């Protein structure tokens, strides 16, 4: 597997500029002769599709929702980072770069992260020009807040709906190109297969989710911007439809899958209420700016929070991490919450929760100030839990939220399959082993607006053009493979629903490959997943027909892929014998329970290669070399 990241030469600060100058260009008159397929309409997908269409390429864009505006990016609440340094508090491109590399526990590529920090500035300009109504100060200039443990205020936000507003900006730019005839939009279409011709990605097979028909779409390059696979845990903050299908098909065609075990667990979500739970709701991390996290000091203390006196409360983050306190990074806060709950000090039904208490902030700032800042989040909390967080502390618990892992890409965002580009959360990205708050939106838009428009041109200009006809054997084989797979799912006619398998897989991964992992647990999972998968293919039931809108069939297909991906995650977690970022192996911790990284053995990206049905995948390594930063131990104490 060729893992040459094609990082440009030269000093870090000049790499991207130099690279852009060296990239080949497609003649403007020729651009319309190229068709690019974009799967996904989130920030990365809509942004990329709109900017490539703007340049003149013909773009076809696909999403599984009924409208591109509903891509899961819509749900991001907190904000987007950019090194604008408007507040004059010492931020810079370098600092954003450094924070991101450090936050990722030194498991990301320097050059990519630097570029991300560099274009972050342009993103804000572009979004404002597109009409994103960011929060403003009375003077009319943009407001910033500090977020997710950063020590500067570099986060731009639009109330608690930043992702929505950024996505609507990109969506509107996309619809403008649809109106111009440069983008053809295919909502309610799910990618089921990648078409590779002569070693290059040349098309995809999609299922029209309304009619059930299979369609092959061909083009000169394929971009996947299909988001993360956090739903592998069944319960997560992701939208119900988020899936791994697109990247999993690509993996099975030879695209390397990087760091699948790097999954982020977000510390502030509303805890599970019962068996029926179908998803978990995130409470924006910004709440930690004013809320204090605590549990009772005593085990099994079931008194209502108000009756627990101050000196019987354990503000454990403030205690363990005095300098960051409640703002400690996500992986650290999540694990701390798990630890206190495992000690039997968790609160709420089932003991899987900790308090996030605003009493002190309300006392200090007044209820109105808190309402002004977090009103919509408090409302949301009350709607779900029927508890009033102005009066009783919120209860929160960590939940699966984001996946740093994804398809491996080089500096140009191209996977190991030539012509297959991967954008946004779907790639293994710039976040190493842990993503900082407000950085995913930044990465999605950076990839879509500012990276892919350049790098795709270089690929197209270097690649000889020849067209692929619809009855090429590779095309027919891909369509047949999808048809056979669907027929197989429909034909089992067993006794268990897709959801029942899905729940089982999810809880197994959550227990064994979630917030903290150990060899015994991972080995157990590795043994159990194939059994579950076998049961799935033997005992599944799906209703209705393949040739119509069929939501149980859609789910079954997604679960089938999660059942395979889950196994790869476990393998990756097992092979990485260190703790770093979100990947916490109990065997590798310091005396006081902190992660112990092993830079000598694991300062690399683990890239998995598919080797065929029933055979173990191969693990490759892309070494990570650091020229500008030196590997330090993360400390938030």
């Amino acid at each position, binding site marked *: 597997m060729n893992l040459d990241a094609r990082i440009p030469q030269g000093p870090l600060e000049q790499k991207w500029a130099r690279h852009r100058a060296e990239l080949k260009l497609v003649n403007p008159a020729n651009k319309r002769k190229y068709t690019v397929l974009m799967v996904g309409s989130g920030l990365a997908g809509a942004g990329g599709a709109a*900017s490539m269409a703007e340049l003149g390429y013909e773009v076809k864009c696909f999403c599984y*929702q*009924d*409208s591109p*505006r*509903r891509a*899961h990016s*819509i*749900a991001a609440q907190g904000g987007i980072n950019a090194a604008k340094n408007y507040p004059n508090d010492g931020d810079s491109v370098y600092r954003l770069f450094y924070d991101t590399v450090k936050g990722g526990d030194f498991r990301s590529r320097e050059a990519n992260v630097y570029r991300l920090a560099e274009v972050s500035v*342009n993103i804000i*300009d*572009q979004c*404002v*020009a*597109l*009409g994103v*109504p*960011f*929060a*403003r*100060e009375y*003077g*009319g*200039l943009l407001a910033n807040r500090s977020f997710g443990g950063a020590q500067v205020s570099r986060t731009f936000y*639009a*109330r608690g*709906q930043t992702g*929505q507003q950024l996505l*609507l900006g990109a*969506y*509107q*730019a996309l*619809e403008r190109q649809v*109106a111009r005839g440069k983008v053809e939009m295919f*909502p309610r279409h799910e990618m089921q297969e990648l078409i590779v011709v002569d070693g290059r990605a040349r098309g995809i097979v999609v299922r029209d989710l*309304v009619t059930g028909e299979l369609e092959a779409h061909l083009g000169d390059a394929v971009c996947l911007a299909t988001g993360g696979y956090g739903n592998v845990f069944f319960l997560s903050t992701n*939208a*119900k*439809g988020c899936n791994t299908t697109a990247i999993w098909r690509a993996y099975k065609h030879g695209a390397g899958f990087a760091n699948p075990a790097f999954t982020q667990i977000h510390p502030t979500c509303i805890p599970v*209420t*019962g068996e*029926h*739970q*179908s998803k978990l709701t*995130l409470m924006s991390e910004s709440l930690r700016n004013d809320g204090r996290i605590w549990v009772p000091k005593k085990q099994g203390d079931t008194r209502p929070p108000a009756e627990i006196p101050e000196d019987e409360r354990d503000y454990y983050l403030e205690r363990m991490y005095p300098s960051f306190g409640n703002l400690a990074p996500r992986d650290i806060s999540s694990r701390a919450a798990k630890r206190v709950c495992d000690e039997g000090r968790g609160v709420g039904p089932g003991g899987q929760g900790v308090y996030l208490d605003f009493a002190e902030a309300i006392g200090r700032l007044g209820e109105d100030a808190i309402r002004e800042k977090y009103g919509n989040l408090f409302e*949301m909390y009350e*709607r*779900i839990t*029927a508890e009033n967080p102005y009066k009783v502390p919120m209860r929160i618990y960590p939940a699966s939220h984001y996946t740093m892992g994804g398809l491996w890409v080089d500096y140009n965002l191209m996977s190991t399959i030539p012509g297959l580009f991967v954008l946004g959360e779907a790639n293994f990205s710039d976040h190493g082993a842990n993503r900082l708050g407000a950085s995913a939106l930044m990465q999605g838009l950076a990839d879509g607006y500012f990276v892919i*428009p350049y790098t795709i041109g270089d690929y197209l200009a270097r690649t000889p053009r020849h067209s692929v006809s619809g009855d090429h054997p590779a095309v027919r084989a891909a369509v047949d493979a999808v048809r056979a797979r669907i027929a197989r799912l429909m034909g089992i006619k067993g*006794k268990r*629903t897709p959801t*029942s398998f899905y729940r089982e897989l999810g809880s197994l991964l959550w227990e064994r490959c979630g917030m903290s992992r150990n060899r015994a647990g991972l080995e157990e999972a590795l043994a159990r997943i194939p059994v579950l998968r076998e049961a799935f293919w033997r005992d599944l*039931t*799906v*209703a209705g027909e393949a040739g*119509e*809108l069929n*939501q*149980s069939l859609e789910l079954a297909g997604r679960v089938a892929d999660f059942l395979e991906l889950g196994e790869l995650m476990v393998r990756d977690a097992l092979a990485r014998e260190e703790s770093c970022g979100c990947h916490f192996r109990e065997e590798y911790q310091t005396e006081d329970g902190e992660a112990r990284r092993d830079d000598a053995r694991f300062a690399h990206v683990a890239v998995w290669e598919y080797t065929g049905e029933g055979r173990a995948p191969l693990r490759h390594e892309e070494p990570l070399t650091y020229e500008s930063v030196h590997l330090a131990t993360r400390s938030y104490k």
Partner: protein
Amino acid sequence: MNLTLHVWRQKGPRERGRFVTYRATDVSADMSFLEMLDVVNEGLLLKGEEPIAFDHDCREGICGACGMVINGRPHGPKARTTTCQLHLRSFRDGQELWLEPWRSRAFPVVKDLIVDRGAFDRVIQAGGYISAAIGSAPDANAVPIRKENADLAMDAAACIGCGACVAACPNGSAMLFTAAKISHLGLLAQGQPERYERAAAMVETMDAEGFGSCTNHNECEAACPKGISVAFIARLNADFVRARLTEGRRLEQVGEGGV
């Protein structure tokens, strides 16, 4: 708790629909409404029957995918709440519920409770954007914007495009949706250059899609899960009137395509 559901079942756009009665037994008041439907669907699936099709994705009230009329109210009885954010504690044990899809000519039923809201995308395509080519933007702070306007723009931009306004409107009008976008962009400095063209083109498309005509009932605002105000409709009216009555001087003079 137990509920009796009368659910609109319709196999496809051209098929005839009808109500079918199901029972949701032993469901918990802490469940969300959609989780209750999940339970009913699991039961149907095990009996070999087709589950009830309904749209949903984020399940946290932001994507705008979900939505059905529950006992005569779009998104159910709770104000400012999407169907996915509705919990069973808003209902009584033993209650009978009628579940219907959004009913509008512009939103044909796809299946059961799912409708096709593509008309909304086409209204946006007509002009619900600012033409700012990627890469061409000036510094974000180059143009200060009055906070009040930015906040109002955000109020309008909070629309999730779920279609409850159309479903709720006795006239099946899409004015609130269209007005929200026109106001969001029209309140910002960046949205000024295209302001009148936008209003004219979006309203033209809205009419062509077959939505009805607003008579200021305010049912849309009442049903809107984001509480978008009908005041934006007045803003749309003003922009449209101006677009159609006084703007376009140049075009009238120069004719085809201007210069």
